């Protein structure tokens, strides 16, 4: 048992590393101040084009769609190496990670030809339009409707929690095309032009003050039938393949989130109630131990999955515990540490103490992380049902026509 690359993996890693050394030199250190949106987009596009030319895009995609036809392990190795640099990140993760695989799996040939190459090259940005105000955890409860009109469909409704909608050229959208069918049956998915008339994008301000998501309003937006993904009424199945790609993404702790070391450092500087440094207090030490066990346990669990990938196997279900552990551990750690720090941890920006400021950000941010991408409650359901085989919750509306379902 070891944590080393196989010879093939080591070779690929060396090649990636050499290329990054030559090409990502300007990103060796973080930017002095964070980029404004236009600069972020420009830099993202330039970096994607560079990667594309060198063969580091679509690493796991089939070659026929412009990909490299390599294993997930190659993609992970590239990601590990790239993460040592501060290159612009995130603009393409939804589009290339989820939207385009859905397009080339379910789209018609001309549509694939039109959209996939430009997306991979980074020329066009994509977003995913699934969640709605009344359909969060219960994704199949969406109400945005699409009505056939000749060769076109007319879309009306509202989506929410859409990342990068304001920077996107296209999106994939799930709509309800037949409300007389049960909720999972009457859905259809389309490609939509985000610049089309009738599309309005509005930023959502979060509790943290940041604005990472958007609301998107559709008001009589027209889409040609050629831009349908999958058959009419198959939207739920198509959406599931999209979401499967999401699940493969490793959901660990946010890169800069505080961990047990933060508490260890803080506790050396703060007095416990008995006047000794807090690091000597056993309740603080127990919290350090628990935080290490949770955070490091998830990292190690991810390594188990990587090992399976490395052997060409499909990872087991262990991964599904990742976010539910990481998010609550973040909140508990931040709460404990801020408690310990008294008034200092309550003053905004923590009076220029960067560790405390990070903990404050983590206290707010973790509340969102416990929800985004599946709440703690939904994830426990998934673990219990898909991993342990327990029966699903009662779903009284499952077989009722959508337009006749009455909440129980």
């Amino acid at each position, binding site marked *: 048992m070891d944590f080393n690359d196989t010879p093939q993996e080591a070779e690929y890693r060396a090649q990636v590393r050499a290329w990054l050394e030559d090409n990502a030199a300007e990103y060796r250190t973080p930017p002095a101040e964070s980029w404004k949106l236009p600069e972020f987009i420009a830099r993202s596009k330039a970096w994607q084009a560079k990667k594309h030319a060198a063969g580091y895009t679509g690493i796991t995609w089939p070659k026929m769609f412009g990909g490299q036809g390599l294993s997930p392990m190659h993609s992970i190795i590239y990601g590990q190496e790239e993460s040592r640099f501060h290159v612009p990140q995130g603009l393409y993760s939804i589009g290339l990670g989820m939207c385009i695989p859905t397009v080339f799996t379910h789209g018609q040939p001309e549509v694939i030809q039109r959209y996939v190459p430009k997306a991979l090259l980074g020329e066009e940005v994509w977003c995913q339009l699934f*969640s709605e*105000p*009344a359909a*969060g*955890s*219960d994704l199949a*409860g969406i109400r945005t409707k699409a009505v056939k009109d000749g060769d076109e469909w007319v879309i009306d409704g509202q989506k*929410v*929690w859409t990342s990068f909608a304001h920077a996107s050229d296209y999106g994939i959208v799930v709509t309800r095309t037949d409300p007389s069918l049960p909720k999972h049956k009457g859905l259809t998915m389309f490609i939509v032009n985000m610049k089309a008339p009738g599309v309005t994008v509005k930023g*959502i*301000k*979060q*509790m943290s*003050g940041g604005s990472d998501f958007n609301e998107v309003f559709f008001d009589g937006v027209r889409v040609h039938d050629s831009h349908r993904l999958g058959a009419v009424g198959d939207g739920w199945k198509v959406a599931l393949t999209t979401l499967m790609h999401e699940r493969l993404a490793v959901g660990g702790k946010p890169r800069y989130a505080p961990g047990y070391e933060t508490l260890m450092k803080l506790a050396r500087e*703060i*007095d*416990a*109630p*008995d*006047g000794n440094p807090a690091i000597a*207090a056993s*309740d603080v030490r127990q919290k350090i131990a628990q935080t290490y066990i949770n955070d490091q346990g998830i990292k190690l669990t991810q390594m188990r999955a990587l090992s399976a990938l490395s052997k060409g196997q499909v990872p087991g279900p262990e991964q599904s515990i990742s976010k539910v552990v990481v998010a609550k551990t973040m*909140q508990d750690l931040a*709460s404990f540490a*801020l*408690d*310990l*720090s*008294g*008034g*200092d*941890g*309550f*003053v*905004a*920006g923590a*009076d220029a103490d960067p560790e405390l400021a990070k903990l*404050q950000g983590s*206290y*707010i941010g973790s*509340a*969102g992380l*416990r*929800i*985004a991408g599946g*709440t*703690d*409650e939904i994830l*426990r359901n998934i673990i219990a049902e898909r991993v342990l085989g327990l029966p699903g*919750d*009662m*779903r*009284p*509306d*499952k077989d*009722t026509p959508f337009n006749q*379902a009455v*909440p*129980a």
Partner: protein
Amino acid sequence: MNFDFSDEAKALGEQARKLLAEKAGTGPARKAMAADSPAMDAALWAEISELGWTAARVPEAYGGLGLSVEEVAQLAEAAGGSLAHVPLVSTLLGTEALVLAGSEAQKARYLPGIASGATIATVAWSEPGAVNPATVKTEAKADRLTGTKQPVADLPVAHVAIVAAAGPDGPQLYIVDLAGADSTVVETIDLVRRHGRLTLNNTPAEALGTASDYQDWLDRAAVITAYEAIGTAGAAMAMTVDYAKTRVAFGQKIGRYQAVKHKCADMYIKLELARAHALHGLAMIGTNGTELRQAAAAARVASLDALAYCAEENVQLHGGIGFTWESDCQFYYRRNRALVAALGPRGWWAERLVRALEQRNRAAA
């Protein structure tokens, strides 16, 4: 046995909750959150002063109503539940210190103004690097104080600060007149309640009671702020329960799911435990009971636990919408941190509780 609020206290609480439901709440709190909004709701302050809330605890000899700490608790709970943008709890805590430990002259100087609402009080114990009420480093020399106090709740609107500083026998309270004091605004995680920094540089001050009075005041302050936290936690729980009764997912009201409903039950359980200890604290204050120290510390710890849980799970059970700026969840989530900072962290008070229990056990042995 009569382990309950008096009918008079209940009536005052009822009045307070009714008025604040109308004049305060998350709507006004959202307005107060705006950076350019006033540091308090002056109209509301005038109205509650008029109603005698600030006079409640002030003895009749000083223009007050001479009511008990039970009434103070009811007011604190109402203020906490409504997030009222007024320095009521700060003033009540300052009043309690003056009533407990003030000399005739001190009472005569400050209490009439407090009773009428003209004088706003606050308490200042927290300091950079001093994480609990026992470790204040501000120095007292010949009735002059030197040190930095922050974050101090409601400092930007206060006229008088009750300041904890290291006295000859350990930390104790001092009175500092804020006219002309070096006071600046300090931003905090709580975007509604205003806080400040009070820089003391050989600043004139007057000792308020003894080091032992400071400890006794801490007990009373713990009980009063426990009620404030219970009010805030109760409001967060009510918000969760309302949402669980109306929000539908997977064809059911989400309140039907045990994951949701059992969290609501746990909120209630934590709140009831906090209420029990806080009421115990009130009973001990009212009867000069020997169990005050343990009751007050237990009330503080239990109420902070209830508030943290209610505030955090309120966001969680609202899902995505709960994490938006537009949602009211953030008020409780942020206030949670304000109330921890207001009187020192859970751990210190739990330690104080255990020490009180040990002392009682030794005394009984």
